[in-house]
């Protein structure tokens, strides 16, 4: 270009001078471009995770109880929970474990494990003293204060009888399953959620179930001559369970009368959220190779299934996905909760945008939210602001369920890397997995994933349960300089954890919303302390909490970079 301009002038000297100037200008521009590119890369790729598993002292190792006969429950174990079990302000970890399937012999029965967070990335196994070492075949877990006594109780959804652990408030738990009446029979469980479905101030319980597998109806299958695990299509779908909290430590099975029992599905991960923003909590159950179920609450705990009408049952082209996990969050900051569903290989993990009035559209392609997911099975996911820029990113964990898949399909792998998609804030996601540090280099077959601020430094860390292996603990080392605010809710008239409460945070030009969920992602539980990234904004103008039942608390001019506890009724706005 410069050559061409120089050659327009007559006379060699002038041309040479022009060329020299052009060269200098070119060099200057190149330097500027280089500096700008460096700055852009630094600004655009700030998400970084460090694999700190070894230093945590966590020795848990998952087992799926496999016997070699390839029973279907082995493939879908298990979820995990991150929550503050001892009320000391930091987040502890509860891992679910499988159990020996028929034909498997073990010296010591595998059990679930609770690790207390001692700070500085050290964790202590307190399973035995806490009394939560269930040896059932763990699949899903939810945490909620069902007895409103101010501490977090645990519900474990098993293949076999389920377990409810009541927190005694002194670091120990009591198995309250029998008294509560929530064992649920001998089924293949999946996700579970606590929710206040009837706004009566206590937490009810939704228990998802997978398929009608028994040892007697096991389907041995082969692909290309190799033995493989059968899919859910080989079994009958089963209805889920819904229990109403009687307020006295017991529950009543209202599966039939509530309307949810009429629908049979192949339930997997689930989340309870106010999908239509009408003030009550609805239920989204992801189904494996079947339409997802959306149970719309009429406010009294009666539900109607509206998956097809809402646009959440299938993907864009009407395909029933093999949904594994379900997560929700407002990815585009338009004030409405969107949903993310993970799925099988040769399918994209799907992002559904909430268009309002209970209608959703699959925006996976438009947003790039499926990038990197197509070849893999995807399980747990988090719609979480990983770099505190005010936009929710996506962390998706992956891994095949056929441990021999490489033998008959060389485009699939059993152990694979997980995926991080950064939200640009302009309606697009960018796959930054290769630039996120050694935390994203781990190749295992992951299942559940939980996202919480484990070290209290204001960014969200990750805990991943890997099938048949040790977990992965990732410390968020993103150096962004961005601000944040975490909000913990304390219900007084409504349920103690504020489950279902809707929170709006306004900081200058940025308005974000979130809800308190108990049970989410792939059969897991996390994020009860709401996290809001604020970018460079140095104060929060307004926080508004809409509690289940309609009460509203408002706080103004809120300090940032801290955990804010909001107690129901203490900040009621003068009308």
């Amino acid at each position: 270009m410069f050559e061409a301009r120089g050659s327009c002038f007559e006379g060699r000297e002038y041309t040479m001078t022009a060329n020299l100037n052009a060269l200098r200008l070119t060099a200057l521009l190149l330097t500027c471009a280089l500096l700008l590119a460096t700055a852009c890369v630094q600004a655009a790729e700030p998400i970084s995770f460090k694999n700190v598993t070894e230093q945590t002292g966590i020795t848990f190792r998952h087992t799926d109880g496999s016997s070699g006969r390839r029973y279907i429950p082995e493939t879908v174990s298990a979820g995990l929970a991150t929550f503050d079990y001892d009320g000391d302000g930091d987040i502890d970890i509860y891992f679910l474990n499988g159990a020996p399937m028929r034909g498997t012999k073990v010296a010591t029965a595998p059990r679930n494990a609770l690790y207390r967070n001692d700070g500085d990335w050290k964790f202590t196994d307190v399973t035995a003293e806490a009394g939560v070492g269930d040896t059932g075949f763990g699949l899903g877990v939810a945490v909620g204060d069902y007895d409103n006594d101010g501490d977090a109780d645990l519900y474990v959804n098993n293949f076999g009888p389920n377990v409810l652990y009541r927190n005694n408030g002194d670091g120990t738990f009591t198995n309250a399953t029998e008294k509560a009446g929530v064992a649920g029979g001998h089924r293949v469980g999946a996700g579970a959620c606590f929710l206040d479905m009837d706004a009566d101030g206590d937490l009810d319980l939704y228990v998802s179930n997978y398929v009608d597998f028994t040892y007697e109806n096991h389907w041995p299958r082969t692909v290309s001559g190799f033995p493989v695990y059968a899919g859910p299509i080989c079994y009958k779908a089963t209805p889920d369970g819904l229990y109403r909290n009687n307020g006295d430590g017991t529950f009543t099975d209202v599966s039939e009368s509530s309307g949810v029992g009429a629908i049979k599905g192949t339930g997997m991960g689930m989340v309870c959220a106010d999908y239509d923003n009408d003030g009550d909590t609805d239920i989204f159950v992801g189904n494996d190779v079947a339409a997802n179920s959306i149970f719309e609450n009429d406010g009294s705990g009666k539900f109607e299934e509206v998956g097809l009408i809402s646009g959440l049952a299938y993907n864009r082209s009407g395909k029933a996905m093999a949904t594994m996990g379900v997560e929700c969050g407002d990815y585009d900051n338009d004030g409405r909760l969107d949903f993310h569903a993970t799925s099988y290989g040769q399918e994209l993990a799907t992002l559904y945008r909430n268009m309002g009035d209970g209608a959703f559209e699959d925006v996976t392609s438009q947003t790039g939210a499926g990038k990197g997911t197509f070849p893999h099975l995807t399980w747990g996911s988090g719609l979480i602001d990983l770099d505190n820029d005010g936009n929710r990113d996506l962390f998706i964990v992956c891994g095949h369920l056929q441990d021999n898949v490489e033998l008959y399909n060389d485009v699939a792998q059993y152990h694979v890397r997980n995926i991080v998609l950064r939200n640009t804030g302009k309606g697009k996601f960018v796959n930054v997995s290769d630039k996120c540090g050694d935390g994203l280099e781990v190749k295992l077959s992951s299942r559940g994933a939980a996202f919480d601020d484990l070290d209290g430094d204001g960014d969200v860390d990750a805990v991943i349960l890997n099938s048949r292996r040790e977990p992965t603990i990732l410390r968020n080392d993103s150096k962004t300089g961005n601000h944040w605010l975490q909000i913990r809710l304390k219900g007084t008239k409504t349920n103690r954890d504020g489950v279902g409460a809707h929170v709006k945070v306004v900081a200058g030009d940025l308005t974000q919303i979130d809800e308190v969920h108990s049970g989410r992602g792939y059969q897991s539980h996390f994020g009860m302390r709401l996290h809001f990234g604020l970018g460079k904004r140095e104060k929060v103008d307004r926080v508004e909490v809409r509690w289940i039942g309609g009460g509203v608390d408002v706080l103004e001019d809120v300090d940032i970079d801290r955990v804010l506890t909001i107690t129901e009724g203490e900040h009621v706005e003068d009308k």
Partner: protein
Amino acid sequence: MLIGAGLCAVVAALVLLWSPWSTEEPGEDLPEQPPVAEAEDETGEPEIEIPTISPRQMAETEAAKQQPTDAAEPAHELWVAPSGQPATFGALKLETGLVARRTLKAFPNDPDSHALMGNASLFSGRGAEAVSAWRRCLELDPARPGAYDGISMIAWKEGRFEEVVTTCRRALKYDANMSDVHFRLGRALIELDRAEEAVAVGQEAVNLWPGSDEAHLLLGQAYVQAEEYAEAQKCFTRAVEIDPNRTRAHYGLATVSARLGQREKAKRHKKRFDELINAERDNLAVWTRNESEASELTDQRARTAAIYAAAAGIYRKHGNTEQAERLMRRAATINPNPTGRR
């Protein structure tokens, strides 16, 4: 036996139709061709480079090369195919690989041999090797739509949609009538949110195959991506006219009717979609439960026999009718009933 051989020939013909071999004249000596990336583009379109295979594919291909093969076999010696019926899936796959490797060894400069190796590798679930073979085939002869088709299939499986678009476009440049390639190209463009291009591809599909519900469905889905719901509705309606039980066309109609505020119409198609998809799921469940090792073996027999028959075609082309005959007989032994279940 002769009937079996005849039927095998039909299967082989089908394979050849899909594969790059069909573009060759029998008996011709194959000239060396420049690599495709350097080939002149007769259409004047920007040159499309052959996609490179991923490091993992490369590593696996290298690893496969290290494995013991029939390296001792003299390249042009008349070799005798195994006799008897292979009893296992593994034995069939082994034989499939063997016949492809031996043919390739006999005719290393014949692109058909590489295409055969590509297909055999694909049948054996070795996508990386298949891609490698098809790429070599394209180096010898860039005008091989079947090889591009194969590469695009593998790219699709790995979710590399940009590569799917590139390879499908190249395949269609040499053979515009490959409907599957056309549809795959359209779907990849939709996945990439390149709605305008997807609409153009869908429109072309409709022009080429006006009686195909798949073509109308693709165009409808492209219009949905472009948020042109009225146009999408017309396409889905046409797809349903062609096949009243086309499940996804009913879903498309339900979705776009709702977007257009036509609630009753949306409701009607949602109901029909619901009925159809439930029936589909029931059928799939029955099929899956009936799927057995025996039925898989039948499928693999058909594939192995097709590879034998295609290899026979290559030998015949090079004037070795004796070996061609042997291979055809072997094809008939392996699969006396080449129609197969699929």
